[in-house]
């Protein structure tokens, strides 16, 4: 029993217990691990439905701005603004990308790459939502522990919940769209509708991560559309292992503390992410998680015969 239970229990316990033992600085790092893990999960959900996004920053930024505006302009309580921004950000993100869903392949990647970079210009040009200065003085969540355990709860819920979803018939349809969309169409299933749903799920998760980060930093501005939020989730998912949400989480757990440790080298970090991406795509396309999983199941073990 332990053989199957341990790999699942260890991360759960680690995520639940780590906030208690970490110092204040590493608690912040822990928060960003969880946020990037959510973004990586959102990337992976899209990737498993056959859409490779190069702009997770779009979802992140939309969520961040929605929550920021709801709190700053309309004075909503953070605990109310957070779910509202999740849905609203998810909805706007879906509508933005809806025209691209009719095409397969690299079109989706191209448009997702373009949109966040252009949205920055729009914010700059129209000076909406504080323009280049952004909105500051956004209310934080009521307590530090609520902050930590809220994001841990969301992360674990998303990880195991969406894993279940992908093992159900619904997830099978999504995976089918990735493998061969024409045969899914042949089965009488509306591909666009399913892709739209997957897009909404993924962009809501991304928006949630953004909205959460807004309340942690108590600030929202143009940096939320920065390249960091696009590239790190992809790197995490590719390094960890695309195709299983656990791989994406594992990747974030590896890469985010690593980038904290490498804080000294500044901009060179993104260079490393780029190199990581290339090396893993070429040398270990299955990712760390699949590799470890395979090795784990290859261990000889004693089984009691009844």
């Amino acid at each position, binding site marked *: 029993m332990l053989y199957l239970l341990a790999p699942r229990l260890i991360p759960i316990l680690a995520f639940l217990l780590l906030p208690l033992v970490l110092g204040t600085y590493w608690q912040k790092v822990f928060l960003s691990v969880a946020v990037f893990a959510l973004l990586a999960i959102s990337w992976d959900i899209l990737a498993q439905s056959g859409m490779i996004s190069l702009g997770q920053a779009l979802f992140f930024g939309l969520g961040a701005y929605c929550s920021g505006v709801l709190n700053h302009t309309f004075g909503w309580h953070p605990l109310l603004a957070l779910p509202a921004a999740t849905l609203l950000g998810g909805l706007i993100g879906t509508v933005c990308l809806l025209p691209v869903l009719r095409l397969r392949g*690299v*079109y989706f990647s191209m448009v997702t790459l373009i949109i966040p*970079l252009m949205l920055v*210009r729009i914010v700059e040009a129209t000076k909406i939502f504080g323009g280049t200065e952004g909105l500051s003085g956004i209310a934080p969540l009521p307590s530090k522990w609520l902050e930590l355990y809220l994001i841990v709860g969301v992360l674990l819920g998303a990880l195991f919940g969406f894993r279940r979803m992908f093992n159900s018939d619904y997830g099978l349809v999504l995976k089918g769209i990735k493998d061969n969309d024409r045969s899914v169409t042949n089965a009488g299933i509306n591909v666009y509708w399913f892709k739209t749903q997957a897009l909404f799920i993924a962009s809501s998760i991304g928006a949630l991560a953004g909205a959460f980060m807004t309340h942690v930093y108590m600030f929202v501005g143009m940096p939320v559309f920065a390249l960091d939020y696009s590239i790190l989730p992809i790197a995490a998912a590719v390094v960890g292992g695309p195709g299983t949400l656990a791989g994406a989480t594992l990747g974030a757990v590896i890469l985010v503390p690593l980038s904290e440790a490498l804080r000294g080298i500044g*901009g060179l970090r*993104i260079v490393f992410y780029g190199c990581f991406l*290339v090396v893993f795509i*070429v040398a270990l*396309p299955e990712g760390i998680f699949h590799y470890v999983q395979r090795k784990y199941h290859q261990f000889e073990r004693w089984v009691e015969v009844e």
Partner: protein
Amino acid sequence: MFLGTIIYALLNSAILAVMAIGFNLTFGISGVANFAYGAMYILSAYLSWMLLNLLEIPYGLSICVSLLVTMGVGALMYRFVLLRVRGQPLSEVIATFGIGLAILELFHYLGFVGFEYTLPVLIDEGFLIGETMVDWQRVLIAAAAGFLVAGLWAFTHHTRLGLAFRGIAQDERTALTLGIDSDRIAMLSVSLGCGLAALSATLIIPLGSISPSEGYEVLIKALAVCIIGGLGSTSGVIVASFVIGFAERFTDTYLSSHWTMIVSLAAILVVLVVKPSGLFGRQKELEERI
């Protein structure tokens, strides 16, 4: 005023066409979406700058060297990275994006930003049309755009290598049965695309300065032109660069320069809604649409 806007819109369209044609060529032939395109543009610009200013090699020679080096980098990128993920478009996208990112952010880290990082213009003069001052560099770009389009057309229709290019674009396996080495041709197409990026850099950089963020800009503009025109279609690139070029110049004159990006974004979204495979993407419509 109006005449000036028209002239500058024409020249702007030529600049966009020169920027996009390399990306489009690579995609049209080998199906590789080269997201390292902007990085190649910047790489070649910095190379020429370094050769010119640090090693003090004559300008013409340094352009040629950087052109060849960029083509070499493109070929190596295909040989060692893309070849291994060939046929999986999404892995290709991630790999080229990673390479491009690494190159651009490396230059960003090294701090090559500033007005001194620019290439000299070839002819530092201008002339007047009506009341509008037009510099020769822009005219040169327009001429180069026309020459490139004509040259590429002649190359792909009337030379052995060009016909092989079109062969693997149409059907890779059939081309293989006719003795065309598709890996070699695809490598050449990626390398040629990077070379065109380098060529456009030597033409366009003298109008501004070199900076890593310019690399993203070029990639975005090339993508925008290709998406609107329909990926892999040369006539699409020409028409789309006129569409975006005119739209940008006119918003710049009659609204404000902040809005130019928004116009291209709106154009992309509108085109995708109305005609998902782009204005001229008819040939590949069946494959790209679901």
